[in-house]
């Protein structure tokens, strides 16, 4: 007994194992596909045979290869200026991914920090932050966006900053509510009772326990930001042409819905697929994170 105990106490703490189970397969496939799309989009310069901005007015409105009159020269056809739609869709993803991931991550960090602070400190700090949240919720996004863009001018950076200013709110709201819940629990009180500092308690006991639902919000905000960027580009508030963006392509192609429907439909499908992919990955990750899940 004694030797057995001595031997067992000598081992070091082990890390959490990552075992792939059957129920992980859906999430993994979505993660791989989404990652592939992101990588393909950002490495487009290296492998795309065609310049996405090269115009060919004689070959405009060419249909995709699977339709009558289509050819494999332009796999997904050409747009109203004869630019290759496949190339533009691939490269257009860059703006969407940059906007989606940056906005959701930065807004998430800001929102969670402020929400936890509000829930943890209570009092004046809480009132200040949560009233700010309320005020911001009351303003329609596009009004703010139009105001900012008309002052600063349209650019990728403007879009990202505008969206961050808008999207930290849902993070803060949920983080605040969840922090209040955790503060009712005994492990929070135990951490206080053992004399830990506030920052240590917040990082170790509050944040890890409120993260799973916030991860779902994160993926949701990635998707929403991609859509918002598309909407802003559609309205001409987005990235200026000729940089291809999905929203810009939708906007440019909407006049051709009856004659060359693939011009707006293809970027629309791209947005939809990416948004679904990110959501599936987020759901999977938040389940995986929870140690109580029956993994």
């Amino acid at each position, binding site marked *: 007994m004694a030797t057995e105990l001595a031997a067992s106490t000598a081992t070091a703490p082990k890390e959490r194992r990552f075992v792939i189970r059957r129920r992980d397969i859906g999430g993994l496939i979505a993660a791989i596909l989404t990652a592939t799309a992101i990588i393909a989009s950002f490495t487009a310069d290296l492998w795309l045979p065609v310049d996405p901005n090269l115009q060919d007015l004689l070959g405009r409105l060419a249909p995709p290869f699977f339709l009558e009159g289509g050819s494999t020269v332009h796999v997904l056809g050409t747009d109203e200026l004869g630019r290759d739609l496949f190339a533009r869709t691939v490269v257009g993803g860059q703006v969407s991914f940059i906007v989606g991931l940056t906005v959701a991550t930065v807004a998430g960090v800001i929102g969670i920090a402020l929400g936890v602070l509000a829930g943890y400190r209570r009092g004046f700090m809480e009132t200040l932050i949560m009233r700010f949240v309320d005020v911001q919720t009351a303003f329609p996004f596009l009004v703010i966006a139009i105001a900012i863009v008309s002052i600063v001018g349209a650019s990728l950076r403007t879009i990202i900053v505008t969206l961050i200013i808008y999207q930290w709110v849902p993070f803060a709201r949920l983080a605040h509510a969840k922090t209040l819940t955790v503060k009712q629990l005994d492990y929070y009180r135990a951490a206080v009772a053992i004399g830990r500092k506030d920052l240590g308690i917040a990082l170790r006991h509050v944040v890890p326990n409120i993260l799973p639902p916030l991860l779902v919000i994160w993926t949701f905000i990635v998707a929403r930001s991609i859509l918002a960027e598309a909407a802003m580009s559609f309205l001409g508030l987005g990235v200026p042409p000729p940089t291809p963006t999905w929203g810009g392509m939708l906007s440019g192609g909407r006049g051709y819905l009856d004659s060359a429907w693939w011009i707006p439909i293809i970027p629309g499908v791209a947005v939809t697929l990416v948004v679904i992919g990110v959501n599936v990955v987020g759901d999977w990750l938040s389940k995986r994170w929870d*140690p109580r899940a029956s993994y």
Partner: protein
Amino acid sequence: MPATEPLLRVDDLHVSFPTDHGIVNAVRGISWSVDAGETLVIVGESGSGKSVSITAVAGLLPRNAMVEGSVRFQGIDPLALKGRALREYRAEKVGLVFQDPLTALNPCFTVGDQIAEIFRVHRNLDRKSAWTKAVSLLEAVQIREPERRAHQYPHELSGGMRQRIVIAMAIALEPPLLLADEPTTALDTSVRGEVLNIISALRRRMGMGVVLITHDVGVAAAVADRVAVMYAGQIVEIGDAEDVFRRPSHPYTRALMASMPRLGSTRRLEAIKGLPPSPREISSGCSFQPRCPIATSRCVADDPALTFVEGTTVEAACHYAGPREEASL
């Protein structure tokens, strides 16, 4: 009062909280003390103020609490501490065991990790030696296969096992005082005894003072050296466990004992009629008087103070206090 200074002494402690419906007087002038190596059990119904008094001693009262009276702990007054000194007091002086082991552990980390964290933060140990200490602490609370258990998450352990972990965390820094707030209430009856035995064993080995709160007279009788019975924010009877349980002097203590089920007894259980008074209304006279079987007009007019009962170690707050023999527990 003993001649030497006790480990912890609470003197005329009042705690009240402002609420939307006026001021709630949770604790109204209680005094008790506990020596090193001694177990004091505070018995009372829910709302009698027993948890609040413990919270005050642990230095965990919310900021809006209004406190009067004094708490002395090895020359320190925890009620006056702030910031760093308060954190140090909480870490080094008192260990706290909670009622519900389900929520007392952080679900995101393994139990070994959580215990090791205490050593890393408060003793500046590196990961590996903190882990080794955590595992040996699990042995101290009589967990078999401590190394394997340390790698498990709280949800993988039973309630009794989790409560042992909570106890392990409370005693990790070897505090001279252990406060246990209903430590067995959420557990299966079959593991209650084990948990109580672990607390008693640790108390003997480390010479800790233990203050245990319960509403279960059976639990109190099993571990108490001394007992304080609380009712409506006041102590109505305090003394050696033997005297309080065998020959209770206060009618409330007798009523508590009579309402407890007993094996082999065919006697009908007697519920205490009525409800405890709301902590918002302080009536004049004895606070137990409306429910008391032996109350007289004197009890309505005059609030009895704690006084020694002849021939016992007990102080009781009743005009008609006197030991009555009880059937053995």
